[in-house]
Each structure stands twice: as structure tokens, then as C-alpha cells.
């Protein structure tokens, strides 16, 4: 069994690896943008006029980048993707790397892993599902609520790994992305903190008991 120190060292190495990966993804993204900008200039003969329509992928990307600019994420990159599907990586709560996948074919935005090691039959998972329901309920103030006419969120627990999928009903991907980000933020800032999950956070989310 690994000692706390061993786990700590592995944690540091893993974090470094994630940060390196994020930085290289960020450079790839910058390069991609420069190339796209050059190509755009070539196509339009150097015309700097903006496109009239913004693709959902660009709209979501701009939104997420805005969060990074505002310090919500400590790191952000646009990963590999196509014109119908795009992955984003966010260095976020507890300095963990989150992946968000936008899928235009399925009309979804999905976090494949939000919480690890949650027993599907546990009280914690039941409470989690209730929490999700409450965020989509009319009892929530309008500015906090996920409008179910526009989007619907569901969770899936596969062998303890909890994912979240938001279905976009009206093509408003920016709204969906915004609400999904808010939801995950509330899970970490509210659900986990307000509930009896201190030990869970220590064991599975890297909360340092010495510094808690």
C-alpha cells in the first residue's frame, strides 16, 4: 500500500504531467488559431471582416475561454476535434483536469468524469441525483435554474465514475455550456462542501487534510 508521501509524490508527478499536457495542448491550439487566421486572411484576400454566424463549437470555445480569462479555470485548452465534435480541457476545481466534450451529432455537452469512486448504490449518489434534480426545478430562482425547455442534465454512474451529460434541446449550446459549467461549479462549491463528504474529498479529490 502506498504511503501518504508516495501518494503525494505521485500526485505531484501526475499534476505536472497534466499541466505539461495542458501547456502543449495550449501551444497546439495557438498554432491552430494562427494557421486558421492566416488561411482566413488568404481566403478573404486579407479582409478582416467577421463571419456573420458563429459555429456552436466556436461559441462554446469563446465562452470557456472567457471563464479562463476570468480566473474560473486555472488552465484551458481546446483539444482535438472535428467540425461536429470538440473536446475541451479545463484545469479547475481542486486543480483537477476536467474534459468537456461537445457533440453536435448527439446535441450534447458531456463531462465524462465529474466525481470518481462514488458507489452507485450509495446515499451519496442518491443525494447527488437529488441535487441535480433540484437545479432543474422550478423552486430554484430563475437565474440559477436550468430551464428544462432548453436543456436537460442527467448523470451516469459507471463503476463509480460519475459523468454528466447535458442535452441541448434548442440549439443554444452556449446556454447549455454555461449551465453545465455552473452546475459542476455548484457540485464542488455547494454539494460536496455542504454534505458529509469531507472524507470523500480527502480520499478521492486530493483535499489535503493538513491544509483543510
Amino acid at each position: 500500500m502506498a504511503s501518504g508521501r508516495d501518494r503525494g509524490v505521485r500526485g505531484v508527478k501526475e499534476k505536472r504531467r497534466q499541466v505539461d499536457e495542458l501547456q502543449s495542448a495550449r501551444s497546439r491550439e495557438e498554432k491552430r488559431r494562427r494557421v486558421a487566421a492566416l488561411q482566413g486572411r488568404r481566403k478573404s484576400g486579407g479582409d478582416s471582416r467577421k463571419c456573420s454566424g458563429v459555429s456552436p463549437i466556436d461559441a462554446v470555445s469563446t465562452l470557456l475561454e472567457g471563464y479562463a480569462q476570468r480566473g474560473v479555470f486555472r488552465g484551458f485548452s481546446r483539444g482535438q476535434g472535428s467540425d461536429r465534435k470538440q473536446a475541451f480541457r479545463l484545469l479547475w476545481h481542486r486543480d483537477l483536469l476536467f474534459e468537456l466534450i461537445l457533440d453536435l451529432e448527439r446535441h450534447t455537452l458531456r463531462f465524462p468524469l465529474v466525481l470518481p469512486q462514488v458507489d452507485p448504490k450509495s446515499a451519496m449518489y442518491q443525494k447527488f441525483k437529488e441535487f441535480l434534480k433540484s437545479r432543474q426545478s422550478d423552486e430554484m430562482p430563475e437565474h440559477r435554474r436550468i430551464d428544462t425547455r432548453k436543456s436537460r442534465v442527467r448523470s451516469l454512474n459507471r463503476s463509480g465514475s460519475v459523468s454528466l451529460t447535458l442535452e441541448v434541446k434548442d440549439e443554444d449550446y452556449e446556454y447549455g455550456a454555461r449551465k453545465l459549467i455552473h452546475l459542476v461549479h455548484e457540485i464542488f462549491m455547494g454539494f460536496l462542501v455542504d454534505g458529509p463528504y469531507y472524507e470523500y474529498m480527502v480520499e478521492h479529490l486530493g483535499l489535503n487534510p493538513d491544509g483543510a
Partner: protein
Amino acid sequence: MSGAEVFAKLCKEEDLAALFCCPGNYTVINAMAAAGIPAYGGRTEGAMCAAADGFSRVTGEVAATSGTEGPGFTHMIMNIAAAHAARTPLLVLASNMQIAGDDREQFIQTAYQQPITTGMKKYGKRLTAPNRVWEYGAYAFRNLKSGVPGPVHLDFPAEVARARFTDAASLTDFYGKDRYRSESRAHPSAKDVEKAVAMISKAERPIIVAGQGIFQRKTWEALKEAAEKQDIAVVTSGPVRGHFPDDHRLSASLSPDALMSADLVIFVGQYCMPSRGEYRFNPEVKAIRVHPVQEDLGRNWPLDLGIVSDEAIFMESLAGALPVKKRDAWVGELASARQAFEKQSLDVYNLGVKYSADTGHIHPAVICKEIHDFLYKGNIDPKQTVTGYGGWTIGLQAGRWGRAFRPGQAVCCGYQWGAIGPDLAMMIGASAAVQRGIGPQAPYQGAPVLCVTSDAGAAYSLFELDTAAKYKIPVIAVIYNNNSWGMWPSAVGSARSMHMYLFQENLRYDSLAEGLGARGEYVQNPEQLREALKRSYEAAAKDKVSTVINCQALKEFTSPKDYPPGIQLPAEPGVGAFAH
């Protein structure tokens, strides 16, 4: 005059409010006491340092601490660091052998002090030129009383403390405080105030985070005026609470769920700045920060508007410039969130009542609710009693149940530094301020002070009950006795480690208190606690006698597996917040 007397004269002219020390640095502390600075001598330097910090936290005034070179000084370290984390204007003094013996380990206790306080002070200096003692005293107070406060550390070699001066001409820069520092403060530009007013007026759910600077600059009236003009929510932060009353309809300190709804946050005097994921605001929230020094604007939290300004001047400008606006929906949301928070706390309390009855040991939520009802729901003026809390399991509960209705009423002893242990000594210092009626404590002069701490924490400060008895500084110390360090769950699953987390069971801290000249009470259920609180309060108010109430608990109350919900971290900012 001696060098020590010159320094003491300067401290007196600066109205230094108190000195907490242990013997050592004799020339300096004797000169300070002789100059008329209220002085208190205690049992350990570390605890006296915490007492000075506590005195300052509830008054905003500069307080000093002193110890002997080497051992006395190094004993203070934890609490100098705690004061630094809390941005306390604390003057740390220590003797330091003789310059003539530097680098020779001559006799005993040779050490370089200044490197040891690196990273935990605002300014520090080993005085080496005797004739510059006044000049460096001025450096000290310039730092203590300007900008963002913090500890200042001066160490006095004997050549400086004992130097003799017969002519003022031999002292460098020997002029008064009107010349060596200024009361002039940074004003916000009219344009910045205009921008702030526009952003606030446009917001639907604005909130002010009223940090320590509001208290330090005593600008709570202007804060209230500005908040009420536009129905702006206010949540307090910092090592002391009460500069916006918890029972005000606009207070968000007990409304953690509403924090997530705010669309504009205005940080004013937030000295210890959190990162975005540390305060419960939503990802869209816009941010204005008002701070007296430019260098800190933008650190940790990207800003939409940064304003360099003294907190008092900004709040007065804002209160004057804001047009009247009502935000009924926002006020309603604050009230609903407060109800939800109080219900959640009551649910845990009701579980605690059951656990207490089942086990014959008193649960932390029950202890804190009983104290709450005694101080705020009974015959005592709810604004009267200054409280402070620390510890882990008990500290988290005490944070939830503690209230502050006026400036300087509640101290978060573990603020930022998270030290377990200074609590009781810190509250003895706070009580010294209350007994003398210093600053915001004036209307409640002579009232008892209450401290909630743990058995682990008590070990660091309990002996200062002797000091409290000696000076008739009453403190009611409620000790949560769960026979362990609160972090014992870290050893679950490691049978060979657990012993390191445990104490002897059912130790009698109340008996120890009696041996030190205080009263002792031993309680195991809520009824006993209720009666003990009454007796202790009366003894404190009438006879100026301190009491330890030993509340016998179980370590398993910490564990969510054994007694759900176990411990719960607080939402920040708001009641119970201890990180920022």
C-alpha cells in the same frame, strides 16, 4: 535616557495600547511599563504573543508582545505567523544579546532573529546603531499604522537597549509622529467611483465582501449606509466579524446559498485574497476590488474594476454617490437562504441531541447551540459578549453558531494560519481589551468574554488562566474534550498510528483550571451545560473570575460514518469561514 527609554517614549507617544510579554528583554519591557503602557506578564511567550494578537483583533489597535532572545523569541513563532496571516498590527519585540558577541556564540542564546521571521512580518530590523533607536521606532509605527497592517519585528541588542543619551542631538531623525508618518490616505478617483456606481446600479444582485479593512478603518457606518441605499447584500470576512451585523436584512453571512446568485461582488478591505474557487460565487460574477495598495489588485482574482483607495474614504464616497434603489427579490432570496442555513444547522443540532442522549456524551452541535441560545436568546444583550473559537470538530460547529451583531464581537482564532491552540490566550488578550473598554469595546466595558476551543488546543494556552486570574481578565473557556486530536480519522485503517492521535481519556481540564485560580465545571449533557454557563457568566461578570467548562464528548462525533454528518466545512465567505 537609555535606548530602551527612548523607544518606550515613542511607543507611548504612539498610544501603544498594550504590551503582553514574559520577562526577558528586561530593559525594554521595564521602560515600557514605566512609561505607562498597559503591560501584562504571562506564562509563555507564545501565548502572550497570541494575547496581543487577540487584543488587536477586537480593537484594531496596535499591541505589542515581547520575549527574551533565543528561547522566548522562538516560542512566539507560531503566533507571529498567525498574526501575519490575520494582518494584525502586532509589534514583536525581543532582546538579542550583544552586537559585540555576534557570530561567536558568546555565552548563550545567540541567533539571527530577523531571518526567522522572514515571510511572517511586514517589516523587521535588528537595531545595531544605538543612536538610531528612535528612527527605527518610527519605521516600526509607520508600518504598523499605514496601508495594510501586519507584524513588525524589532530585536534589541544590549548595546542599543542600554545606550545612554544625555542630549537629543545625538539621536537621529528625532522628530514626532506628525512628521515621520502621515495620516493621508489614498482617495479613489471620481472616475473610478462613477464606474463602481454604474456597475452596482446595473447589477441585479450585488454583494459587498466587507473585509478586515472595513474594521481596521472603522468604516462600518458608511458601509451600512451604502448597502441600505441600494439593497446591496453584505458578507463579512477576515479574522474578526461584526462590522456588518448578522441580523441585518442585507447580511449574507448566514446565507451561503445566496452567494452563488450574486452577479457583482465588491471586495472592500479584503486583505487576504482568495482565489476564484475558494469563495462561493458563480462563474459569471463580475468583480470590483478596493484596496489601499495597488500591488495587490488583480492578485488571485481577475478584476473588472480595481480601485486604489483607503477603505473608509471609498465607502464614504460610494455612500454619497449611490442613487437609491430597491431590490426586493434579492433581499427575499437572502432571507430564504438564511432560513435554509438555519434549518440545516438545526437539523444537525437535533441529530446531536439524539447522539448526546444515546451516548451520555455531549455532541459539538449541542454545545454550540446551547452557547448560542445562552448568549443571544436569553437575558444577555446579544451584542454584549465577545466570542472567539478554534479547534477542528468544535471550531467548525462554533463557526456556524457564533454570531456578531456589532464590530469586534467575534474572533476567528484560526483565521488563515489554522493554528490549533492560540484560542484561549488570544481571547484573554481580547478580554483585556473588553475590560478596559478599548475602541469598539467601549460600550461593553467589563463584560465577560467566551472562548470555544478543543482539548488539543487547550494544551497550548491553558496555563494563561493564571495570567487571567492575576489581572482579573475573565474568560469563559468551553473546552470540547473528545480525548483526541480532531484529525484522528486520518489514522483509521492504520492501527499502529492511532495512538499518536489520542490523549488519555476523560482528562479533567476543569480540575486543572481550578489549580490555576479559575473555576472548573464538568458537563456531559445540555442541561448541565446550560447551568454551567449561567454560573460561569455570573462569576466572570461579578467577580472577574475565569471558568473552564469541560464538555466531555467522544472522538467518534467527528466521523460521518459513526455519527453523520460528522464534520462539515463552512461555505466561504460567511459565518464559520476560516481560510479567507
